[in-house]
């Protein structure tokens, strides 16, 4: 900031003139560089309404270095003329002068001098007129005095061509008195300090107004990932509904738990290399509850428990294949099997939200891994109406109240229902999840009591997150290529509003 002395000098100058003054004139008056005055103007602006300054730009003509020399010492041709005595001067001597060359040719073309080539003792230069008028010098002196307006454009351009003048743009301020003009400087405070409060000095202080146009300083802090914020909300919903979290911390699963235990036949397309990631090391699983495995084999190959079965040659080798779990329902199967091993059945409500893997072709909505949300309820006498009822409660907590259900097919649930919600924006029904009642061929071999029904539903975590945060490409949400700015900027997640 410019020192107060200078600022007050500027203010005194402004006080003297009505209607304001140009910062260039101020600089000339105070005899300082214009840039110093520009700095002073900015400092004064920061003090509030002391002055008002309007920026303007003006073009004006300025002498070049050579132009200044001529304004002082005369043009080259005038200097040559003045150097020639009445008896003339040998040309070679004249040419030795600093202005000799240029001055000689200009003076010749002005017809101020003549050259006698045949002169005895070598070529000699003589004056042809008594006196001359040095118009170049006069014009340059006019510009120097700030009176360039008196020259015609043609004249100025000619001088510019001779590199004696140049045109420059100057940014300056038109300074007028502000609403709280004063010739003395009172420093404005930026912050209210403890000292001011203690001494009461704040009462006399002037406080600098806030600049609400400024970007502000972002607080230095960490940010949670939006997908994980949504996960937290879904966990919260399940916990509010009395659901217990399942242990899903095992990405690797055997085909047995991922498919066979769910009564998914071994020839099912989902078990194809094109859909599932199989593990080469360790390729096979070896530990299975043997008697349960036998019951699973039987229900697939021969039926039982009131079922016809699939009537095919069930192979242990197929069940042993390790894979990256394709759904968290593999964990639900393990949990239901565990439940069936209890001495006495107790009703349960389970949930999980975790990663699953599909060997799919990747696009804007599909990645090789995504998060599955799953809810499971096991109790005596649960009905399809109960499943719809609980789905209604679940989706109400997500802010979705208009639901309808469509028959669907899934190898391990019967009935199976796709859940649709009415999208007010799109004005149509959109699928929001899948649900169903687990098949008896899955539950009874586990050892669950006959009257127990297990209802379940699932949806992806990514899709509602993308809708909530307005992200169209899943690759902008998940993975190392995401822009961290998206993470920094993502707002808090409130699913129900």
């Amino acid at each position, binding site marked *: 900031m410019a020192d107060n002395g200078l600022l007050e000098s500027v203010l005194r100058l402004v006080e003297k003139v009505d209607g304001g003054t140009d910062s260039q004139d101020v600089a000339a008056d105070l005899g300082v560089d214009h840039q110093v005055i520009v700095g002073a103007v900015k400092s004064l602006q920061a003090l509030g309404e002391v002055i008002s300054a309007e920026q303007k730009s003006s073009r004006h003509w300025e002498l070049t270095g050579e132009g200044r020399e001529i304004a002082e010492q005369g043009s080259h041709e005038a200097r040559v003329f003045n150097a020639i005595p009445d008896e003339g001067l040998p040309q070679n001597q004249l040419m030795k002068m600093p202005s000799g060359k240029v001055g000689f040719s200009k003076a010749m073309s002005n017809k101020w001098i003549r050259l006698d080539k045949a002169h005895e003792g070598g070529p000699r230069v003589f004056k042809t007129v008594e006196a001359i008028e040095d118009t170049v010098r006069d014009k340059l002196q006019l510009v120097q005095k700030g009176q360039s307006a008196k020259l015609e454009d043609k004249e100025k351009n000619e001088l510019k061509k001779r590199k004696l003048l140049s045109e420059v743009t100057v940014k300056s301020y038109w300074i007028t008195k502000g609403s709280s003009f004063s010739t003395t400087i009172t420093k404005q405070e930026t912050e209210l300090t403890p000292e001011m409060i203690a001494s009461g000095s704040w009462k006399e202080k002037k406080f600098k107004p806030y600049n609400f146009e400024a970007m502000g300083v972002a607080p230095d802090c960490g940010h949670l990932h939006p997908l994980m914020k949504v996960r937290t909300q879904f966990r919260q919903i399940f916990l509010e509904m009395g659901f217990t979290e399942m242990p899903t911390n095992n990405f690797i699963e055997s085909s047995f738990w991922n498919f066979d235990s769910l009564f998914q036949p071994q020839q099912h397309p989902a078990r194809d290399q094109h859909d599932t990631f199989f593990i080469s090391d*360790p390729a096979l699983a070896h530990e299975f509850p043997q008697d349960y495995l036998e019951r699973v084999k039987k229900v697939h190959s021969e039926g039982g428990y009131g079922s016809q079965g699939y009537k095919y040659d069930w192979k242990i080798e197929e069940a042993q294949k390790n894979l990256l779990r394709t759904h968290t329902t593999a964990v639900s199967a393990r949990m239901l099997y565990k439940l069936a091993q209890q001495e006495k059945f107790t009703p349960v409500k389970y949930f999980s939200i975790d990663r699953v893997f599909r060997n799919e072709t990747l696009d804007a909505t599909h990645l090789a891994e995504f998060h599955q949300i799953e809810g499971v309820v096991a109790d005596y006498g649960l009905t399809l109406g109960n499943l719809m009822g609980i789905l209604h409660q679940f989706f109400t907590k997500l802010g979705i109240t208009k639901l309808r259900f469509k028959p669907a097919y899934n190898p391990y649930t019967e009935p199976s229902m796709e859940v649709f919600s009415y999208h007010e924006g799109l004005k149509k029904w959109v699928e929001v999840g899948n649900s169903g009642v687990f098949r008896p061929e899955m539950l009874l071999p586990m050892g669950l009591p006959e009257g127990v029904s297990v209802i379940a539903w699932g949806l992806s975590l990514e899709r509602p997150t993308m809708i909530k945060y307005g992200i169209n490409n899943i690759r902008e949400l998940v993975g190392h290529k995401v822009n961290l700015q998206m993470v920094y900027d993502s707002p808090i997640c409130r699913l129900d509003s």
Partner: protein
Amino acid sequence: MYLNNKMLFSIHILADEEFDELCFEFGLELDEITSEKEILIREQGGEKAEGASDVVLYKIDVPANRYDLLCLEGLVRGLQVFKEKLEAPRYKRVSPADGGEPQRLVITEETASVRPHAVAAVLRNITFTQERYESFIELQEKLHQNICRKRTLVAIGTHDLDTISGPFTYTAKPPGEIRFKPLSQSREYTAAELMSLYKTDSHLRHYLHIIENEPLYPIIYDSNGIVLSMPPIINGDHSKISLNTKNIFIECTATDLTKAKITLDMVVTMFSVYCDEPFTVEEAEVVYPDGRLSVYPELAYRTETLSGDFINKRVGINESAESIAQLLTRMCLRSEVSGEGDLIQVEIPPTRADVIHACDIMEDAAIAYGFNNIVRSTPRTYTVANQLPVNKLTELLRQDLTAAGFTEALTFALCSEEDIADKLRKNITETRAVHISNPKTADFQVARTSLLPGLLKTIAANRKMPLPLKLFEISDVVLKDETKDSTFFPGRCAEIFSCGKSIGHLGVLHPDVISRFELTMPCSAIDIDIEPFL
């Protein structure tokens, strides 16, 4: 599959909304409403579409287990029965009308090693039109892709019976000894020649692998040595069917007999509608190598008995047994109340191979009742919620880590071998990583053994962001066993112990690691196993 307006009319429906609603209720997906012209414009451009039909078509997706809805004949029949405009037909297996011997297919023991099963049937006095013929071919193709698992489980061959004469022999021979003129070719080829000919065939090349490496190839001959087909690859040209074919011999060869029977039942139940005696199918005998004789198609009707109470309790409705029987009948499951209490006799037709348990019948009752007519009620199940300890701790740590100025990254659990080995200055064998056998790209070779590569890649992708970048991730890694660490800068790292147990590492990353992740700034990391804190 595409359905046109004429067919909708046969279900007594004309308005699009009404049809959309019916599809939803029945569990079909009305994908789009279009026309032949529109499809051609989209797929091949405007010129090709000139003169194409602009009759409105409805594109419909069918549930994967409903083979009976895979062709127009079956779909329209199913919807007509559902709308009670038609009674479900009864499919009947009959002996040859002329009182003669049934057609016979003899299986030799050579087939045992490659494709041991076969079934057969005859459609008599059928009348094709262009539309019916195309639908017949299309159904076979759909069954091949679907229940037949791309012909690995079952392959269908259909033949003009009047061009061949039984008994037929299903055997297997070395490829060099098989020679015939295949469909759409002008000369004879050996089986070996065919296999190389079809290597470049966009359709057939997908099936070659099924028998390619077998010493014997399956082959079916008639009594004069004419080749009917070389399943599961191609039929012979001699017996090919046409619009004028009147009598069709159908054979299905298989590695899965159950699926072969279902496939045969589907083809004959769907298309016997065009026979002079609709819905009748002439039997064929199949003789096994051990002399056993079976008669096909099975066209078996099975009866299940269940109570109205069972349906009511499972669905959550309160209907009389009579009304439930009526609901089921609309789903092509002809049902009646048996007189004893509320017991219902349900007859499962050969078209409904998907019905294997009472729960499947229960679902059909619910569909016919209308899922959206069922009263929604809250289960009374009382439970106390528990969080998984590791997730509970994770949630708490995530909060405090962000409060400490760290931003949460979310990276992939799958990555390349290079990410977890070379780039971290480790040998892949010492990582104890779990390897994936069928990755489509290098990005899915292994499950991550460390969260570090994902975080470093996140920084590398965000080099334009202002420094410092402080990231964290709490998630699972997959290890076959415990590992040691050489990723850090020697003398600038430490192992972290808690209660005498090693739980992780912290330190400045080795400069090699930093540059291998295409980073230039120094980077430090901390890596802790949180499971010991549970």
